[in-house]
């Protein structure tokens, strides 16, 4: 009898465990029930912003929630390195957010994966005015003439310089701008002259020897030479203009190894600049906010020099997207769109993080012009060489960076590195 009881008890245990699993999914579904139109709409926003970016985004969300009691945005900050993987898996399992972020360069991949909803059907109802956006930024977010995202900024690769150090080296003019001839040789002369004036613990050019930033500089120089992306117009054939790619890479490599104006393998180059130990560095505009808050640092920002034939730089944009839902609800989507436009319209807040707002009228706005530094580089938005809308941009970027790194550390000859790069690109695109 007793044994029969234990058998019964353990059976109950198993069944209740199984029951717990099924009832769990049921309640989750219940939460997704679409609200009626006058009900309060709560939208989930997945973002990848951290640091200063994260703070200013939260500030905009808070003021939106206050101004729109019927629409409440819940901001879920995800870790940037894992953001896209989570977004893709979240959407595919039907647990995606109502609003998401995408870089312009990543957008085609997300569209191909079936993660992003087209905006045009919803926009028809809400009378979206696309003409208020900077057209260079906006057109990079369109695919086959369709809108998929609301761009909120562009964040190009720019040139930061330490005014105090440049002045000591006699390289700063009366207007506080560097004295530099805009050419490949002019830049080298500038850096070498600066280096000769420095103390032993200082460096001319603070720059990492691996990763994204040297890639961005290479991208800029490659486009200044007339190169055009690393993928053909069919968006799936790797295509590198070898002569230009090698010329650009060799020029950068010489800065490390021949002129030695960049110390090798710096662990944290922006910190070196913040500490006042570096004459200049190049990186994304998002550094502006951080540098501004550094006490006693007198610095300036300007577009990167025109090394070669035409002005061009690396850049990308943050855009807001509507991830695909299992059961799309127009009311929620309209509310989401209202939020997305609100963020785009409040570009002057976003600009405090350093970004250039995507709306043309904000850039001309007095409030934006009041912000120091931004007006020095706002023109860059028109010279950004965006990626072509290929679904392989990010996968290719990983391959490029890895192989460029072997050029910078002088372990592989430049031509060989590009050959290996091209071969690996073909493995990625198959």
């Amino acid at each position, binding site marked *: 009898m007793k044994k029969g009881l234990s058998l019964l008890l353990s059976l109950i245990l198993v069944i209740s465990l199984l029951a717990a699993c099924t009832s769990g999914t049921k309640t989750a579904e219940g939460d997704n029930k679409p609200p009626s139109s006058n009900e309060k709409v709560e939208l989930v926003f997945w973002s990848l912003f951290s640091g200063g970016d994260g703070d200013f985004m939260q500030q905009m969300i808070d003021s939106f929630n206050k101004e729109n009691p019927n629409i409440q945005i819940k901001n879920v900050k995800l870790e940037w390195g894992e953001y896209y*993987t989570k977004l893709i898996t979240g959407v595919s399992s039907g647990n995606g957010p109502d609003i998401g972020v995408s870089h312009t360069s990543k957008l085609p991949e997300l569209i191909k994966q079936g993660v992003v909803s087209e905006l045009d059907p919803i926009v028809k109802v809400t009378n979206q005015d696309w003409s208020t956006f900077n057209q260079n930024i906006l057109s990079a977010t369109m695919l086959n003439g369709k809108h998929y995202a609301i761009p909120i900024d562009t964040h190009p690769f720019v040139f930061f310089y330490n005014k105090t150090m440049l002045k000591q080296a006699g390289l700063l003019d009366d207007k506080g701008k560097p004295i530099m001839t805009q050419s490949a040789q002019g830049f080298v002369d500038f850096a070498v002259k600066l280096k000769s004036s420095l103390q032993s613990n200082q460096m001319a050019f603070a720059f990492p020897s*691996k990763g994204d930033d040297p890639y961005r500089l290479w991208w800029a120089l490659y486009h200044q030479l007339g190169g055009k992306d690393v993928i053909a117009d069919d968006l799936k054939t790797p295509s590198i203009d070898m002569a230009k790619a090698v010329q650009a890479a060799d020029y950068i490599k010489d800065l490390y190894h021949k002129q030695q104006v960049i110390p*090798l393998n710096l662990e944290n180059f922006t910190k070196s600049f913040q500490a006042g130990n570096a004459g200049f560095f190049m990186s994304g505009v998002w550094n502006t906010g951080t540098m501004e808050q550094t006490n006693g640092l007198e610095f300036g920002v300007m577009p990167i020099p025109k090394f070669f034939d035409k002005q061009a730089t690396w850049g990308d944009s943050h855009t807001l997207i509507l991830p695909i839902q299992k059961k799309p609800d127009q009311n929620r989507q309209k509310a989401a769109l209202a939020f997305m436009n609100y963020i785009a319209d409040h570009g002057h807040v976003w600009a405090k993080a350093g970004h250039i707002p995507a709306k043309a009228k904000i850039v001309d706005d007095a409030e934006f012009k009041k912000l120091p530094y931004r007006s020095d580089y706002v023109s860059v938005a028109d010279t950004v060489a965006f990626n072509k809308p290929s679904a392989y941009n990010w996968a290719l970027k990983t391959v490029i960076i890895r192989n460029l790194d072997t050029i910078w550390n002088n372990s592989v000859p430049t031509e060989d590195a590009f050959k290996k790069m091209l071969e690996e690109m073909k493995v990625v695109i198959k």
Partner: protein
Amino acid sequence: MKSKKLIGDVKAVPFLLPFFVVYAWFTVYPMLKGLQMSLYQWTLIRQMDYIGFANYSAMFKDRQFWEALWNTTLFVLLSTPGMVVLALVLALFANMRTRFRTFLRSSFFLPSILSVSVISFLAIFMLQPYTGFVNSLLHLMGSKAEPFWLADRNLAWVSIIGVTLWWTVGFNMILYLASLQEIPDYLYEAGTIDGATDGQLFWNVTLPLLAPITRVILLLQIIASYKVFSQIWLITRGGPGTKTRPIIQYIYETGFKNNDLGYAATMSYALFVILLVLSFIQLKLRPKEEV
């Protein structure tokens, strides 16, 4: 009699079932699913195309796969001897009857309780150029050298192996220590009476009696080292270039960054087969009486 046994078996079922369900759902099913995936072009959001063995033939031609596999093998070859010998040496120290016994034991084992992210950031902090602890120490001792511990191919391996040794050798040491304490004292007494020196005692008594545990450590170590990923990912990201990228990192990047889960599953199966063969060889090499 027979029916009683049957009843006993039936009664065992509900107790085993919860574990079995979880095991089948989270281990057996994913394994079979992985085999299926390796025959498909399979993306993160399950756009699937059956492609037969194309992933497998691509793998054999993929130079990146072979490089990554070699990197992992190199890590195993470089780290395993140190992992075993150093563990033994430390265990011998920790087994000495001195006043510092507890101190030695805890200090040898201490790094093992730290998480991989902690030891990796410590390593980066110690090894970074210009301001890192190691290079600053070199400068203090009058050296003008500026070795790039994490950016030079060979030094990066030295750094990774060194950090891994420091981090995980404590666990093997504990295994050795337990085994050392199981060696009965009378063997040493008998040896001493027969006039054996300390060296002879070590080579003829201690070492042979540690052979079984050494085989266990070797097996565990090789399998664990073949799965190396986290510390390399956190310290060098597989760099410079791909020179320290292990196979697991390549599998991860293929699956989750390049969105090609099918090919990632294929390579996982290749690694699985390698580990299976290695374990099999070790089991076969083991003397009969121990099994």
